[in-house]
């Protein structure tokens, strides 16, 4: 039963570089939290501070409410999973799992009990007396996991543990880890740059950019209600389509003019974006995920088809619209210099779409997102304490 709490946790290097300006984050007991972000976002630095591998420059790190800033890695009762997973060919599976506990003078009866528990959990109980050479690849991987989890630490920390596995084993192990963590119930912090890993594994996902927490929420919440453009575009594959538009008034309520066409938001949009009526004439970033284009929806968006990809379960249609692309960058928001941009729609694979044709796609207005072009923050989502307006330019950097 352990919680991990970071209160204004900071990391500054001797050269003045501020890798983590001040992070507030709590991982609940038994929770699987994934820390995700692009390379250099500070996620590994945070994990290392938690592990005791990096000195903490400021703030507090608490495990079960006790401050551990000045404790060494061994004193924190943390297991770094997969830091090393060498298996010894002449030792049995049981000995491979147990030997590190013997090294630390754990009583024999306790070792036997824990090995039994772990073996059952990992479905290795039938092969405890075998040598690793007699096991399948997946079983070997589980023996390696067994070595890490047999101690039953307060926290598991995993830093890109799947990065050195081949694609097939990566998918398999991803599922194994998620399943195992839920069965063990050990509080876990998992670091990855791969948003698919993050979304499929975590109870909650914390998205970092330049050491700043952009959003921490359940995978579904992140996907459907991103707080800002960075999260909107980082989460999801293919990424959310985002182009520049202007809020306009139409005969049927508010709309967004995108180049030479207008997507009418109607009453659904008016409810979704409270206060949009006061934004007429304002430029915004208009975002819509590929699957919210080309299905059901009251809005309409026309595009010139450039490429059609049949993936079996879906049809990805790539086309251009006459509006510049908008994307989140490290320092804020960037608008493309090009007057047109590429948009992707995920459609029913039974539909026939011709390359070079012009298609009018339904837009599911309930899944449209608007972002402030300066701050990148989501505009007027709802009245439940989440973002309703976003005109303060530094808002994004407060995390």
């Amino acid at each position, binding site marked *: 039963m352990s919680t991990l709490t970071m209160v204004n946790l900071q990391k500054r290097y001797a050269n003045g570089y501020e890798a983590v300006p001040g992070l507030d984050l709590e991982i609940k007991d038994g929770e699987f939290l994934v820390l995700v972000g692009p390379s250099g976002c500070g996620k590994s630095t945070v994990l290392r501070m938690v592990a005791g591998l990096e000195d903490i420059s400021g703030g507090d790190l608490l495990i079960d409410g006790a401050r551990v800033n000045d404790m060494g890695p061994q004193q924190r009762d943390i297991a770094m999973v997969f830091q*090393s997973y060498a298996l010894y060919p002449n*030792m049995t599976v049981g000995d491979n799992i147990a*030997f590190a506990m013997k090294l630390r003078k754990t009583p024999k009866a306790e070792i036997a009990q824990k090995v039994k528990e772990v073996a059952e959990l990992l479905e290795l109980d039938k092969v405890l007396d075998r040598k690793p050479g007699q096991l399948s690849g997946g079983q070997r991987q589980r023996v390696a996991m067994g070595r890490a989890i047999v101690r039953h630490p307060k926290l598991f920390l995993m830093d890109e543990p799947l*990065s050195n596995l081949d694609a097939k084993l990566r998918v398999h192990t991803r599922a194994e880890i998620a399943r195992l963590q839920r069965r063990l119930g050990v509080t876990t912090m998992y670091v990855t740059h791969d948003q698919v890993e993050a979304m499929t594994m975590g109870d909650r996902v914390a998205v970092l950019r330049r050491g700043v927490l952009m959003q921490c929420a359940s995978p579904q919440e992140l996907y459907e209600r991103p707080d800002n453009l960075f999260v909107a575009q980082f989460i999801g594959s293919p990424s959310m389509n985002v182009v520049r538009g202007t809020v306009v008034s139409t005969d049927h309520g508010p709309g967004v003019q995108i180049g030479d066409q207008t997507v009418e938001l109607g009453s659904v949009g008016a409810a979704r974006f409270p206060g949009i009526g006061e934004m007429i004439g304002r430029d915004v970033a208009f975002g819509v995920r590929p699957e919210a284009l080309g299905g059901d929806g009251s809005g309409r968006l026309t595009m010139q088809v450039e490429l059609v990809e049949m993936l079996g379960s879906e049809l990805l249609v790539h086309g251009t619209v006459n509006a510049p692309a908008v994307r989140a960058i490290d320092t804020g928001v960037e608008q493309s210099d090009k007057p047109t941009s590429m948009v992707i729609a995920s459609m029913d694979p039974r539909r026939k779409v011709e390359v070079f044709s012009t298609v009018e796609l339904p837009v599911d207005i309930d899944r449209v997102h608007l972002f402030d072009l300066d701050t990148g923050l989501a505009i007027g989502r709802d009245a439940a304490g989440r973002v309703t307006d976003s005109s303060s330019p530094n808002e994004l950097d407060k995390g």
Partner: protein
Amino acid sequence: MRLQLSKPSEHPAVVGWPLADPLGSWQLDHLQPVAGLHRHEVRLVELDPVSYVVKELPDRLAERESRLLRELHEAGVPTVEIVGVVTDRPRGQDGLLITRFLDYSLPYRTLLAGRGLRIPSLGERLLDALTGLLVRLHLAGFFWGDCSLSNTLFRRDAGALSAFIIDLETGERHAELTDGQRLLDLSIATENVAGGLLDLQAAGRLSDEVDPWQVALAIEETYARLWLELTGTEEFHVDESFRVAQRLDRLHELGFDAEEIDLETTAGGTHLRLVPRVVEHGFHARELFELTGLRTGENQARRLLQDVQRYGVVTEQRMGAKQRPVIIADLWLSERFQPALAAIPADLVGKLEPAEIYHQILEHRWYLSEAAGTDVGLDLAVRSWIKLAEQALTAPDAAEPVSESGADDRNP
């Protein structure tokens, strides 16, 4: 597919390998599997005069390990030489990392199997070498993440052993390691060494009298002692400035050199505080190289430098005046070292480094002289060493010509 090959003229054979095919399907002459369990497909290609280790792993990891091994090499930490990296292979296959097999090296299983730790000195030397390597790595800002006996190869070094990193898949480079990083790395090393020794024992190849736990935990003490000597702050009275020279001598004795030292006066002005900035291992090896051009291990260099010094007395007597070190070294090289090596049959030369052979001859000369009660001279020692080495090679359990200084249970 992209092949990045270092020094292509030295490795022409690599271009002819079936680099586009899965490593497991290669059909090459002299291709060998590598013993043990591996995370990735690994093969040994034994060619003359160079052998190669080829490892199949994702492109990103292959490039990363290649870069780290190169950086290690540049930082003066002993490691294998990177030959090439293959990426963007067809059909989405993983990349290949090609390293040069370390000449004259031995794995721990060969060094310890069946005898090693029953003979205390060899086991201790092996672990001392591994610990020394970890300390050097940490001084250079590298975190290993998987320090183990099986990720290391060893070379004989004048009665001691030198350790070389052969796998750095989990490594990281930092400007400087924190205490937490060092301690975690040390704890991984301790666990891995215990695992390696237990595995040998489980295979019946290590004496049951050996306690792997005790042996492995000793690494932590050795590491702490060495780290303190190399980096620890020392405080002494202003009248005891000789302690600066003493500290430097101790560093040199350990084979390290100090680029600079910080000496600060303490608040009361009565004491000095010394902080060494240790830079590199290989103090004696560099000195020998500057004098003779020979590249050797640190202990070999220490031993050979003693012989050079001793030869200085001989040249002084012969020439009637004390000679400059560079002249003495040149005479020693042409009149002692090279003739002794030239007398060794080719099949013995290939088994050991030249400096190691010369060290063993010196050692053998010492034993012969002690038995005879008089100096038997170098020529006789060379002839006798050759005879014994040839006998050892033809013995039924022959493996390597070995030192007789107590490190092993066989004569040369």
